[in-house]
């Protein structure tokens, strides 16, 4: 979707056009759901977070200033929802990954054992680090976009990505 088309849809959605907002959801759902699947581990939970993020985004659309992309803004809303939910429910429960989701993904090129090791290693990263890795290495967001989404300084995001990557690599090598 071109930035012009996106701006047109956002303006229409602000006026209450639900079809325009549905088009925005349709266009960005893959990136947003992908991020939360990598961040949350549990795929059903990830889709719930993504849904809540989009619903919240619609109710707060008047506050969207366009300083970041719509996709980044929704990811930021969802990240705060997910982080608050984790704090409320305790970290132990949410680290229980959905292994069935990993097994079901038979088309992926990576070997299953690597994906399981990666999912375990991701679950062990601190929230901010995991989110930075999921955004930059998993979904291809730029460091600047990730910094805006996570409301962190750019340098912190870069360091989270570097450290997170190192930890994932060491886990894949079987160092831990």
């Amino acid at each position, binding site marked *: 979707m071109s930035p012009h088309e996106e701006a047109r849809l956002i303006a229409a959605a602000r006026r209450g056009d*639900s079809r325009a*907002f*549905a088009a925005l*959801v*349709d266009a960005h*759902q*893959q*990136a947003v*759901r*992908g991020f939360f*699947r*990598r961040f949350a581990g549990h795929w059903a939970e990830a*889709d719930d977070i*993504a*849904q*809540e993020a*989009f*619903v919240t985004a*619609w*109710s707060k659309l008047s506050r969207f200033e366009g300083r970041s992309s719509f996709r980044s803004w929704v990811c930021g809303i969802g990240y705060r929802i997910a982080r608050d939910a984790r704090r409320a429910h305790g970290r132990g429960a949410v680290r229980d990954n959905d292994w069935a989701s990993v097994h079901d*993904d038979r*088309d*992926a*090129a*990576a*070997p299953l054992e*690597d*994906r399981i*090791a*990666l999912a375990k290693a991701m679950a062990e990263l601190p929230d901010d680090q995991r989110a930075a*890795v999921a955004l930059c*290495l*998993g979904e291809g967001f730029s460091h600047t976009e990730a910094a805006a989404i996570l409301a962190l300084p750019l340098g912190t995001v870069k360091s989270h990505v570097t450290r997170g*990557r190192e930890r*994932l*690599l060491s886990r*894949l*090598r079987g160092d831990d």
Partner: protein
Amino acid sequence: MDDEARLARALGAPAAPKRDAAFTLGVMREAERQRFRRAWLLSLLRTAGVAAAGAALAVPLMGWAPGNLAALQNGLLTAGSLLALVSFARIMSQRLSIAAR
């Protein structure tokens, strides 16, 4: 395969499914449900406000009315007349605007 390549492949494994119309539909349904709930709560608050104001007016009126029946009758008649006048004006203006089209 070296570790960098293994990590890249494992991270690159698709986490999101293909575009899913059911997800979009779910978002829109949930948004509508929340909008309906907000509207319902607002209407409930408005009704409760009107009821509270009515009750607050009724309490002193109950004490005042028995000694001032004539004034109460006059007041009710005046209010009824005003209401009828306003309703008539609204109906006429609606008809005139329809006829003007």
